[in-house]
């Protein structure tokens, strides 16, 4: 999704990690972790794609950072189930999983929630994406991170931890239920009066933005990586102007 649709999320992740002083490598051969097929029940289709992912990332050392709690959860929490009849592969999956982090988790764990001190004049609210919250365990950390951005006015979103209704293939397969759940989310979003909604998973971003656009709302939904990177760019451009 990030590679082919929201490429700016990937570029932003790249920029943030570089800003933190890291050498960042993008494995050109990567495609997908296999989650879409796995979540739809098609494990025999997901398995080779997951195995490809494992083999690819075994070739490099160091932490693997993904700007998605959902993909991180797939590798860390569900590869074990996917390879439950193949203990050797399950073990290799576990080892890759131990090096794999979601972006905000990686930043808050190794650099602290105050590591990014950018600047962005806007008003925003934060939606807690389900897999980042419940599978990876990032709750208030991303909000703390955002509150360190100079000029960004954060408003609390009511029921921020309730699902937006995306759920991958569920959003198409059970479109009416997915939309009913989304509607409730969008009502709470519009009630905040914020200009932007920040979320940490591209799927949820599409779901909420797609719904807001259809409502004719001007509220923008942006990925947290984009916000953090933009806030850093603003500091750099101010500095170079001075």
């Amino acid at each position, binding site marked *: 999704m990030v590679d082919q649709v929201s490429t700016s999320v*990937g570029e932003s992740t790249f920029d943030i990690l570089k800003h933190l002083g890291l050498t960042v490598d993008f494995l050109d051969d990567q495609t997908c972790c296999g989650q879409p097929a796995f979540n739809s029940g098609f494990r025999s289709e997901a398995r080779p794609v997951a195995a490809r992912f494992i083999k690819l990332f075994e070739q490099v050392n160091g932490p693997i950072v993904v700007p998605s709690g959902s993909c991180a959860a797939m590798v860390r929490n569900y590869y074990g189930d996917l390879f439950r009849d193949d203990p050797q592969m399950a073990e290799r999956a576990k080892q890759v999983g131990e090096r794999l982090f979601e972006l905000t988790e990686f930043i808050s764990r190794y650099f602290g929630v105050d590591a990014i001190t950018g600047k962005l004049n806007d008003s925003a609210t934060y939606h807690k994406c389900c897999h980042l919250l419940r599978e990876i365990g990032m709750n208030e950390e991303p909000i703390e991170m955002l509150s360190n951005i100079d000029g960004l006015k954060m408003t609390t979103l009511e029921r921020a931890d309730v699902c937006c*209704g995306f759920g991958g293939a*569920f959003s198409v397969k059970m479109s009416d239920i997915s939309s009913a759940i989304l509607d409730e989310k969008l009502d709470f979003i519009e009630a905040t009066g914020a200009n932007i909604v920040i979320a940490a998973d591209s799927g949820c971003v599409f779901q909420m*933005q797609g719904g807001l656009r259809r409502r004719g709302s001007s509220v923008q939904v942006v990925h947290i990586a984009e916000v953090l990177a933009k806030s850093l760019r603003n500091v750099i451009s101010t500095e170079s102007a001075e």
Partner: protein
Amino acid sequence: MKPLTLNFRNKAAETMGDKQVQQSLEHVYTGFFKGRLEAAGDTPEWEELRDKGKAIKDHTIAHLDYYLGMLADNVEKNGGSVYFAENADEARQHIIDLAHARNIKTIIKSKSMVSEEMALAESLNDEGFETVETDLGEYIIQLAGETPYHLIAPAVHKSRLEVAELLDDNYKSGDRVPDATELTMMAREKLRGVFARADMSVTGVNFAVAESGSIALVTNEGNGRMSTTVPRVHVAVMGMEKIVPSIQDLSTMLRILIRSATGQRISTYVTMVNGARASDEEEGPEEFHLVIMNNGRQNLLADPQLRESLNCIRCGACLNACPVYRKVGGHAYGWVYPGPIGSIVTPVMTGLKDAHNLPAASSLCGACLDACPVKINIPRMLLELRHRTAEGSADTAERTSSKAERGIWKLWRAGMMGRKRFDLGARLSWLLLRPMAKNGWLKKTPPPISRWTSTRDFPIMASSSLRSKLSKRTKKAKS
């Protein structure tokens, strides 16, 4: 109860279009969900209690034969009878036979989901016994001729106005503002007479204690206590998993059950029954019968991937937490147990083929696992059932996926197995969709994505992939 699981989509759509029911379902979140959060927050050892509860249930289910034997022995020692029913038909027939043999006229029921599996109240009425539900919610549902909407709040979908119309024969819409207290008093008056003349009761069992042969009932209206003391015959029905080894375990389970169900620290009544009246006692029923039902639970027990669902204590917390349940309501699930836990036990107990939509009806948000007092990993089991509907396990009769669906995922795999194909697929989609897009978004798309665009705009691919953007950057940096 006859499963209507095949009807999931229609019933869900109907409920989502019903403004009044949607409003009633709000209470599931604002009342029950928030109540549980508050009660858990006020209990410093909450997480330890959950772990303890899980350990108790894991242990009991792993040694279920042993504890069922112990329970049966002790119930009989206390002077009661025990009947093991293989299925709902056997259980129902046993209870009907008991009633006929004792010339019973009036039967009062206290709330029991297991009795719903047997459609017991309806069957007993058909047999000629006056049978009345005594839990207020169940009573309302019985008057409406419906089935429970929620594990602990059977009439949660009913508005006060509807309840007034059901309870008050003289009620005329718009006559007066229906008042909850007044309506409850009205039901109470009607039920008092039934309690007085009842000669048999059927109750559920929240927990059966193996070491003492006792059963525990959790109620808020006192109807459980009336049912277990007034009539001369007491029949208790339970699923075979509703058992704890000891009284100490019971105390742990009660603490997590009640907090998770209603957010109360303790329910108004907790009734313990050790069987019928002893020879030196003056009050209580003359007979006590315990009916322990299998009805497909053996299938869950024999299934290592789904066995954990037998740990469920029917508190309803996963329903309250579930964004899908809060939209589609309880009846959409088509059988006795709605919500996330229902989406696991219903397919196994009634057949996955008809119930294939149940495990699919989840965004996998994980709120159910978070809410479960015994930490049942519901999302994991939903994924397991999806796997069976998609690809079939040992028994291919489970497979309900269409040929087209299987084809799509095969194609998907092919696209993901090589970077060149991956890029090519994305570029082709971009070329195809770009003419229809405005500012990178689509209003209309061909199937199956048309299901998305019926309510939401859809994003198109970026003009080039992240890989090519990053490699351009690197080249720029080098030059």
